[in-house]
């Protein structure tokens, strides 16, 4: 698997888009830090960008890479390799190169700013960790869709819809539900509802880490009571891991039955 991973990784690292993505974060980091001069504020701004952008980029790159490397996959399938080896190698190649663009792109300006002497280092690293998680999750989800649809346009369309669902529509439905059941105690539902969406889950994790949960109002207190504890932290990280593992498991299963 490492061989495939290595080549997929090189292939992507050489494509222009990885650089665009990397430089985008690099410039963003420098601009926010050196124009703003306030690390905490910069981190909040970056959080908002990461929560929308990493899933979107992960989704687009995942689908694009799958369809683009289709003939190459066929070449590999004729070699003495297990199917799961090929698809896992490609998946991790994409996910790792994207995660690296994020971590390096934001890490360099922060390191240059002297973050390592600052107390914000943990907040900042939790930001990068959740960003990396989101990348792994959304690349895996979009890979699933690409595997399921032979038609590029369909696969691409559904992938974008999936992103839109998690980034926007989910919250909308959630809000409507909360409003219409206003008279009932909703603490548990709010907790469960936001745990089931990886983007919401990441947002809550970062906000709690940044200690700005007051922004969340009453539910913030509920969240803090749950996620703020050790078991809450473990549960939420477990959920993020599950969001990575389950789609990967389906990639393996799906690829085993697919015709090329």
């Amino acid at each position: 698997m490492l061989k495939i991973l290595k080549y997929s990784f090189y292939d992507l690292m050489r494509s222009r888009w990885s650089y665009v993505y990397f430089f985008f974060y690099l410039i963003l980091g420098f601009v926010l830090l050196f124009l703003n001069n306030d690390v905490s504020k910069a981190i909040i701004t970056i959080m908002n960008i990461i929560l929308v952008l990493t899933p979107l980029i992960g989704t687009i790159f995942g689908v694009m890479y799958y369809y683009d490397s289709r003939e190459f996959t066929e070449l590999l399938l004729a070699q003495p390799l297990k199917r799961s080896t090929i698809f896992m190698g490609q998946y991790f190649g994409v996910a790792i190169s994207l995660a690296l663009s994020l971590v390096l792109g934001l890490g360099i300006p922060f390191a240059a700013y002297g973050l390592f002497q600052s107390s914000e280092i943990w907040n900042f690293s939790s930001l990068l960790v959740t960003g990396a998680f989101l990348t792994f999750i959304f690349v895996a989800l979009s890979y699933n869709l690409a595997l399921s649809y032979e038609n590029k346009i369909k696969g691409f369309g559904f992938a974008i819809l999936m992103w839109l669902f998690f980034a926007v529509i989910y919250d909308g439905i959630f809000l409507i539900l909360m409003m219409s059941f206003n008279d009932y105690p909703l603490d548990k539902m709010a907790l469960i509802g936001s745990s089931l969406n990886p983007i919401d889950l990441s947002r809550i994790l970062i906000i709690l880490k940044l200690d700005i949960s007051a922004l969340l109002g009453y539910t913030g207190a509920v969240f803090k009571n749950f996620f703020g504890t050790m078991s809450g932290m473990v549960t939420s990280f477990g959920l993020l891991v599950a969001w990575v593992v389950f789609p990967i498991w389906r990639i393996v299963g799906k690829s085993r039955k697919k015709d090329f």
Partner: protein
Amino acid sequence: MIKIEQLYKSFGKVDVLEGLDLEITDKGIFAILGPNGSGKTTLIKSILGMVIPQKGKIYFQGEPVMGKWDYRSNISYLPQIAQFPVNLKVRELIEMIKNIRGQSSNEKRLIDLFKVQPFMDKKLGTLSGGTKQKINLVLTFMFDSDLIILDEPTTGLDPVALIYLKELIQEEKAKGKLILVTTHIMKLVEEIADKIVFILDGKIYFEGTVNEIQSKTGEDDLEHAIANILKETYA
């Protein structure tokens, strides 16, 4: 070397292979022929494990191969369309396949033969179709496999490369290998094939030598003989 029993494969509502039986025990060059959509590529891809049949069994060198992967280290396959990762250089692609297979290879000779030396440090995305096909041939013939499968090997090749390809195929045959070729160019079949396997409606319609198919249809020319069979079935 290859034995296929009652192979069924359909894509959605389209039945492609309908209980295909085939046994190839001898060595040499086998041409797999049939009209468009008759299942030639599906058959080949089933042998390679790229297409997963609904029913049936496939044996390679006496072992059942479905769901396995290591048997492919003894098969070289030339796919129909040569398409490679655009950001890799030719040299890197060759190194990569060598690295994956971990077998000894003789790519140097093939690179000289097809004159692709000047392209070695070019990215694959910048190459022409014919050059890509030559790279494809280098990748296929550089390993010493008992079974060589060529799916439309002549696509995009210039006449000189075509002559070299035929020589290469004969060379491999002399080494005692089994070579399966699909093509629509009957001249090539007449020139090189020891036997013909004709697929029609998802089954083997005919298996035998070029002479046998000619006497069966009463046509001297292979192209007409094949056309005869097709006309009969279209009617």
